[in-house]
């Protein structure tokens, strides 16, 4: 092709070829102008109808922004760019809507929970180092040690049950259920796991209860292990599904490379497949733990609630953070007849606060979120240090 030839153009009915520079783009800040215009019109319109509020102004303003931005772009830039502008705005809008609950939730929990945690007396950690024994009425005291330990213990035991069961099921499905009767069995297992995923948590709680009552002499028995069994029922399908996906991602090449070196199948699974997938497996298992650590209903049924610390998974009720939140919130505002409340056990005297129960619920919610975040952080670190290294 000769270098002097003009850029090829589409044949059009008009004689002059269409120039490439003809399409104009407006600079990005025109979006700000149309946005401000939308907001102003929205505020004005809402004021006229006496319905002005921040939320309504933002929502109507955004809708008008879509309209103005699209119309303005249509006039100045043409239909193709107008559609582009409209879609960009819609995508950003959808993102903002999905972020709103998350940010708002985090903000409320931090604002209300962290305040109560920091305000704990006698020192800043007291909310996490005291339990609720002897805390009555509107006493502005008490803490969640018992609930933290309960939640951690029950989740630990639930994980001890679910992770081996779930991981071995996933290994069976991926590595062994490939032909014949094993394949049929694998399909059955997959179906049942899918069904299990849909079990409502309250039903899992009832199962845990019924299972233990069926062989325990005491019909009103409540133990931490019952809660762990109920939670593992919810956890196993998540572990199976997540691990299965991760194991399937391990390339067949690596298994064959290992077989070709004369490595038996079980060692290949342990040392190549699991080792290669470990980052994904950790993430999947952490997600499963995060899924059950906040469960309330099954624990209300099987573990109940106490005010003091119980380390024994096999004897008596235990406190957990979700049930603690539930209980404190249901207690509602306290009745402050006097300025102070005395602890009947150790005779300490506390100030009375009407909102103490609600405050404790928020602080416990904050604590739960912190625990989940710490677990996530640990999982991230494990994935980081064990994931396949590609750098030179």
């Amino acid at each position: 092709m000769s270098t002097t030839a003009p850029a090829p153009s589409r044949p059009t009915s008009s004689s002059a070829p269409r120039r490439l520079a003809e399409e104009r783009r407006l600079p990005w800040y025109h979006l700000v102008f149309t946005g401000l215009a939308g907001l102003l019109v929205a505020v004005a319109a809402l004021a006229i109808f006496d319905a002005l509020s921040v939320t309504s102004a933002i929502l109507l303003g955004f809708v008008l922004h879509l309209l103005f931005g699209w119309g303005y772009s249509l006039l100045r830039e043409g239909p193709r760019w107008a559609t582009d502008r409209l879609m960009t705005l819609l995508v950003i809008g959808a993102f903002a809507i999905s972020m709103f609950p998350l940010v708002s939730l985090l903000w409320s929990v931090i604002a209300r929970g962290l305040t109560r945690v920091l305000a704990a007396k006698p020192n800043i950690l007291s909310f996490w180092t005291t339990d609720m024994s002897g805390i009555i009425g509107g006493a502005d005291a008490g803490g969640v040690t018992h609930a933290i330990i309960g939640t951690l213990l029950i989740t630990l035991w639930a994980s001890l049950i679910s992770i081996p069961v779930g991981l071995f099921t996933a290994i069976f499905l991926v590595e062994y259920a490939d032909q014949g009767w094993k394949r049929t069995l694998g399909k059955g297992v997959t179906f049942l796991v899918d069904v299990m995923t849909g079990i409502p948590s309250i039903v899992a709680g009832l199962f845990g209860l019924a299972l233990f009552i069926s062989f325990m002499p005491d019909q009103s028995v409540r133990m931490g292990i019952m809660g762990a069994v109920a939670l593992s029922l919810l956890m196993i399908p998540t572990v199976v599904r997540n691990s299965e996906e991760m194991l399937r991602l391990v390339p067949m090449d690596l298994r064959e490379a290992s077989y070709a070196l004369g490595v038996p199948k079980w060692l290949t699974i342990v040392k190549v497949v699991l080792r290669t997938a470990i980052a994904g497996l950790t993430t999947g298992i952490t997600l499963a733990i995060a899924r059950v650590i906040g469960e309330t209903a099954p624990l209300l049924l099987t573990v109940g609630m106490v005010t003091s610390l119980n380390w024994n998974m096999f004897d008596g009720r235990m406190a957990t953070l979700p049930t603690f939140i539930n209980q404190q919130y249901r207690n509602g505002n306290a009745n402050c007849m006097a300025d102070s409340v005395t602890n009947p056990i150790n005779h300490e005297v506390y100030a009375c606060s009407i909102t103490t129960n609600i405050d404790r619920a928020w602080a416990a919610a904050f604590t739960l979120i912190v625990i989940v975040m710490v677990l996530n952080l640990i999982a991230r670190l494990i994935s980081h240090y064990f994931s396949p290294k590609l750098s030179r």
Partner: protein
Amino acid sequence: MAAPQPITVEDLNIYYGDFLAVEGVDVQIRPRSVTALIGPSGCGKSTFLRTLNRMHEVIPGAYAKGKVEINGEDIYDSRVDPVNVRRRVGMVFQKANPFPTMSIRDNVLAGVKLNNRRISKTDADELVERALKGANLWNEVKDRLDKPGMGLSGGQQQRLCIARTIAVKPEVVLMDEPCSALDPISTLAIEDLIHELKEEYTIVIVTHNMQQASRVSDRTGFFNIAGTGKPGHLIEIDDTDTIFTNPSNKQTEDYISGRFG
């Protein structure tokens, strides 16, 4: 070491489930030499290669019937553990597949470490050096043995896989199109390596590249297939010079002269 015996294949039929993929292979593969297998895509040459170390049956539903004797032992005898066969017959794959979680050193030692065998550090160092030198990779990686194996270039990764294979000291090395993903320089490096390796190992290589077959092999076998859905056959096997200059079968002549299909 006792004088190596040929690999004897008698009446080998290879199946994928109900489908007969390769039919009636009878061949003797000479020890300490390079045998190349050529033929059109889908003719069963890779499938045949994988039956020589019982890797074929890793695929669900796949099996082989017949006799493959290595050192006088039938590897398809019901009392033979495929794991033991694979320890004696190593394999290099089309796509270089170093273990992504392992360093260069650990990749070479994979055959030892994955089998949970204990090895002293000095023995391990010696084995790594010998295997990497054997794969012509030592000089390129000796200063970064602890770096990930995936960080190497494609050709280096393939030579790492060869080092890994010869580190377990097999008698036979199978190569399934080892150069098809490599540039000409890396290909040359691997072909030179094959020449050196045949001093110690029996090598069977599948290749799509007829020039490569003529360059590296002592004997060449030609596989062909009558049509889709029909089983592949070993048409003829002979000295490489004979196959490329004076083949006895018309199909072979058509294939190597490009008049095929």
